[in-house]
C-alpha cells in the first residue's frame, strides 16, 4: 500500500514543480464562486467581458482562473488557499461565503467581492467608505423600495405579497427582511414560502397560490435555477410574478426595476482595473450597485403579464427601458 503513498507523493512533487508560465505584462485574476448556478456564471462572464471592454483581453494580456466550490465549504477554503498561494493580481469573490473564505485566507492579496448583499453584516468589510485592508467590492443589495413601488403601481390593490426564496442563502434573507420592513411601512402583508433546493421551487410557488395577490422573488439563485417551473405555476394560476433582476423578467416575470447579473460582473471589472492600475483596495470605496444611476432600469415582459392576466399601466410601459 505504500506504493500508493509514493504515487501520491510523486504527483504532488510534480505539481509543485510546475510553474505556470506568465507573460511579463499579463495580469492574473482568480475568480472564486461558491457554486456555479447560471446567474453566478453570468457574473463571472460579466467580469471577463468588462475587463475586455477596458483593454484586458483573456489570452492576450490577461489570465483568468475560475473555480467553483460546488457548494462545499471545505473546498471553498482550499480554493481560497490555492488562489492566495498563486499570488494573482486580484481575487474576485462571488457570493458571501466565497468572500468570507478568501478574506480569511489573506490580508495581502487584493480582493474584490461581488454579489454579496450585506458585506457589513457578513463582516467582509467594516465600512463602505475607505474600507481599509485588502478588500473592497460591490453589493447587490436589491433596491426593494423601488421594486415594491413598481409592484404596487402595476397592482394598486395589492394586499398580500408572497415571497419565494431559499432560506440557506444569506443574500435572500437580507432582501426578505428588507421587504418585510417595507410591508409594515406601506401597509401590506407578506407570506413566505421557502424552497431548500431547486426541486422544491414549484411546490413553494404552489403553496402561495390563493393566499397572495402576487409573488416576488428576491434575487435568489436557487429559485432562478428552477425559474421556469415557478413561471409555469404563476401562469397556470394567473398569479402575478415579479422578480428583482432583468434576466428573470425575460424568462417570464412581469417586471422589475433592476439590473442583471452580467451588469454586476461588468461593474466589478471596473474595480479590478483600478487595482491593476495601482490603487489599493482599502482606498476604493465599496458601493451598492443600486446606487449607480446607470445601473437600474425598468424592464417589462408584456407577454408574461398577459399570460398572468395583468394589464400593465401605460405609465409603466412608457418608462420601460426594455419591453420583452
Amino acid at each position, binding site marked *: *500500500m505504500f*506504493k*500508493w*503513498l509514493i504515487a*501520491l507523493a510523486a*504527483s*504532488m512533487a510534480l*505539481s*509543485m514543480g*510546475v510553474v*505556470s508560465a506568465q507573460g511579463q505584462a499579463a495580469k492574473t485574476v482568480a475568480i472564486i464562486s461558491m457554486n*456555479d448556478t447560471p446567474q453566478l456564471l453570468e457574473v463571472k462572464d460579466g467580469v471577463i467581458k468588462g475587463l475586455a471592454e477596458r483593454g484586458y483581453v483573456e489570452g492576450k494580456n490577461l489570465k483568468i*482562473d475560475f*473555480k*467553483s*466550490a*460546488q*457548494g*462545499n*465549504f*471545505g*473546498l*471553498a*477554503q*482550499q*480554493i*481560497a*488557499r*490555492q488562489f*492566495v*498561494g*498563486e*499570488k494573482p493580481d486580484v481575487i474576485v469573490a462571488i457570493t*458571501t*461565503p466565497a468572500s*468570507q*473564505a478568501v*478574506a*480569511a*485566507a489573506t490580508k495581502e492579496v487584493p480582493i474584490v467581492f461581488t454579489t454579496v448583499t450585506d458585506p457589513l*453584516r*457578513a*463582516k*467582509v468589510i*467594516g465600512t463602505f467608505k475607505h474600507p481599509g485592508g485588502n478588500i473592497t467590492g460591490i453589493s447587490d443589495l436589491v433596491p426593494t423600495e423601488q421594486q415594491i413601488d413598481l409592484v404596487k403601481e402595476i397592482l394598486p390593490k395589492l394586499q398580500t405579497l408572497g415571497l419565494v426564496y431559499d*432560506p*440557506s*442563502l*444569506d443574500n435572500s*434573507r437580507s432582501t426578505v427582511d428588507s421587504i418585510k420592513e417595507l410591508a409594515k411601512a406601506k401597509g401590506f402583508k407578506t407570506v413566505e414560502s421557502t424552497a*431548500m433546493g431547486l426541486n422544491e421551487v414549484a411546490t413553494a410557488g404552489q403553496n402561495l397560490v390563493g393566499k397572495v395577490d402576487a409573488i416576488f422573488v428576491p434575487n435568489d439563485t436557487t429559485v432562478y435555477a428552477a425559474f421556469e417551473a415557478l413561471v409555469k405555476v404563476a401562469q397556470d394560476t394567473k398569479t402575478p410574478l415579479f422578480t428583482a433582476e432583468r434576466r428573470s423578467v425575460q424568462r417570464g416575470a412581469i417586471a422589475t426595476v433592476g439590473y442583471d447579473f452580467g451588469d454586476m460582473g461588468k461593474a466589478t471589472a471596473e474595480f479590478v482595473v483600478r487595482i491593476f492600475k495601482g490603487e489599493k483596495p482599502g482606498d476604493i470605496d465599496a458601493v451598492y450597485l443600486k446606487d449607480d444611476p446607470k445601473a437600474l432600469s425598468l424592464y417589462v415582459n408584456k407577454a408574461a403579464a398577459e399570460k398572468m392576466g395583468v394589464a400593465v399601466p401605460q405609465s409603466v410601459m412608457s418608462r420601460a427601458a426594455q419591453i420583452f
Partner: protein
Amino acid sequence: MSLYAFVGALETGLAFALVALGSYITFRVLDFPDLTVEGSFPLGAAVSAQLLISGVNPWVATSIAVVAGCFAGFITAFLNLKLRILHILASILTAIALYSINLRIMGRPNIGLLQVETVYSTAEGVGIPSQYVPLALLAVIVLLCKLLLDLFLNTGTGLAMRAAGANPRMAQANGVNVQRMIFVGLGIANGLTAFSGALFAQMMGAADVSMGIGVIVVALAAVIGGTALMPSRSIVAATLACVLGSILYRLAIATALNSGYIGLTASDVNVVTAVLVAIALFAPGRKFSLSGILGRRTK
C-alpha cells in the same frame, strides 16, 4: 502547489480529522451508519458562532458547541433505540431537523466571524509565526483528541463499546448495556463533529447553515481511505489512519486543484473523491467485499 496551499490542505485536513474520528466510532466501532454529521457539523459552527458574536470566550463557546453536538448524537440514538427507527434513517432525520434548528440558532443563514475573537486569535503570541498558528493549534487539538479516544477505547467502557459494535448479542449476553453504548458512542462521535464544525467555522471566517453538505463523504473518504492504506488491528493505528486519511484527502484535492494541466477542475472533486476511495479499497492485499467496507473485520 504553493506552500500556502499545502499548509491550507494540512489545516483543513486536521479540522476534518475530528469528523473522521467521529465517523470511525460510529461506522467502524459501533457499526452504526451515522449521517447525523451533516447536521451536527454545522450545529457546532452555528452554536459557537452565535456565542462568539455575543462576546463569549472562544474556548467556552467551542466547548458549548461540543456539548450541543453530543445532544444531536443522543437524539439519533433515541430515535433508533427507543422509537425503533432504522439507524441510517434515524440519523438522516436528525440531520434534517438540525438544518432548521441551526437556522433558528443563528437567526439567519450566515454569521460572519472575520473580525471576531476566535480560538486561533487567543493562541497568537505564543511565539510561533502568525501564519502557522492555526496549523499548530489544530495539530495539538487533533493529537489530544486522538490520544484521548485511543485511551477511552481501551478502558472498560470503551472495550464494552467495541464489543457492542462487533457482536451486540454476545455483548448483551455478557452484561454489556448495548443501548447505553450506542448512546455514548453517538454522543462522543457527534461531539467531535461539532467540535470540528466550530474549529472550521472559526478558520473559515463564517458559520453558514449549508456547511454540512458533503461532510459525510469527506469523513468516509478519510476513514475508508486511511484504514485501507494502513490496515491494522490496533485502535491506535486505526485512529492515526483516520487522521492521516483526512489529511491525505485534502492534499489530493489540493493537488488536483493545482493540476490544471491535467484538465481537472474543482467541479471534478466528487469524481476524484470516488476514484480515491475506490483505489484505497483496491489496495493490494485487501479483498473487496461489502462486509469489508462496513468494517466487520478490522475494528
